């Protein structure tokens, strides 16, 4: 069954500074939606508002047209990967897969080198390995929508490609919202991309729109070599 998640009418202010206004975002089952924006533009705040973690006076979040208030209250509807490590370090990998009701053998299919960690505590894994387990537990678990905040950070390039394949496979069953500064990967896997600029969301068509909104420059992210 196809579901849709719509977000609008969000106003977020810190003291007198308005961070978000005139936001509109839509995600559907079978689609991956990307959110790009400069540092401090309010990407993470937007995800936190959708999840119900950050309270605002104005917001309208609708699942199939019906308002939802605190997304975190129902993981069957929405799960959220924050940009920091969130799994308690003393929990074993096998326990994480049991808690999220996901298949470890399928995970091994994507990341064979993790087989040896089945009985290990997540705290014994490296930062990148830890992140991969966290990303997979959110993407692969049963839910209608999932939001991923900077999933590609800390992860080595070969695993980034695997994660992109997982996203492509999982979006058949759910809607996925991603934000990350590695925008080339976002462009590669997303069906829709919104840019947050001056607190507003703009649906982009191509790279030229990213340049127009000041997210990338004309030369992309090329750095001069020494």
């Amino acid at each position, binding site marked *: 069954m196809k579901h849709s998640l719509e977000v609008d009418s969000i106003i977020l202010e810190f003291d007198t500074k308005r961070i978000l206004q005139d936001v509109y975002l839509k995600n559907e089952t079978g689609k991956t939606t990307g959110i790009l924006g400069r540092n401090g533009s309010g990407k993470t705040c937007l995800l936190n508002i959708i999840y119900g973690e950050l309270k605002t006076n104005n917001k309208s979040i609708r699942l199939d047209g019906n308002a939802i208030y605190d997304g975190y209250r129902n993981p069957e509807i929405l799960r959220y990967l924050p940009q920091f490590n969130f799994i308690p370090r*003393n929990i074993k990998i096998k326990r994480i897969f049991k808690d*999220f009701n996901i298949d470890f053998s399928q995970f091994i299919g994507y990341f064979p080198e993790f087989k040896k960690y089945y009985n290990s505590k997540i705290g014994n894994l490296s930062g990148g390995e830890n992140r991969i387990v966290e990303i997979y537990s959110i993407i692969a678990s049963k839910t209608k929508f999932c939001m991923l905040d900077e999933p590609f950070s800390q992860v080595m390039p070969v695993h980034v490609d695997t994660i992109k394949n997982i996203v492509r496979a999982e979006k058949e069953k759910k809607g996925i919202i991603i934000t990350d500064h590695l925008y080339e990967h976002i462009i590669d896997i997303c069906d829709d991309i919104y840019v947050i600029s001056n607190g507003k969301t703009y649906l982009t068509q191509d790279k030229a729109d990213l340049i127009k909104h000041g997210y990338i420059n004309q030369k992309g992210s090329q750095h001069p070599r020494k």
Partner: protein
Amino acid sequence: MKTIRLILTFYKSFAFISLLITCTCLGLLYGFGAKGIYMIQALFWFKIITLALTVYFVNIYKKNQFYYYKNLGLSRLIIWIPIIVFDFLLFLIPSIILASHLHETLPGS
């Protein structure tokens, strides 16, 4: 069952310090013998204050971990309420039993 397991996992991360405070309170109550009964009010408030401080600091230092439980359907409130009730009862019930025992040993009772 899964909810209880998750709450216990969270409780385990600071249970040692909490149980140490409870044992200290009960030890003081027992150690003072018949006079210990006069300390029960102070120990009662000591336990409440230390429990409040524990909740405050755990909320700060483990704030990222709450996302794990939230992704599994457990809000902060669902986690904290049973833990606070259980931890306080773990102090209160032995205290009452010990106090009633000490009351019997008071001269003239």
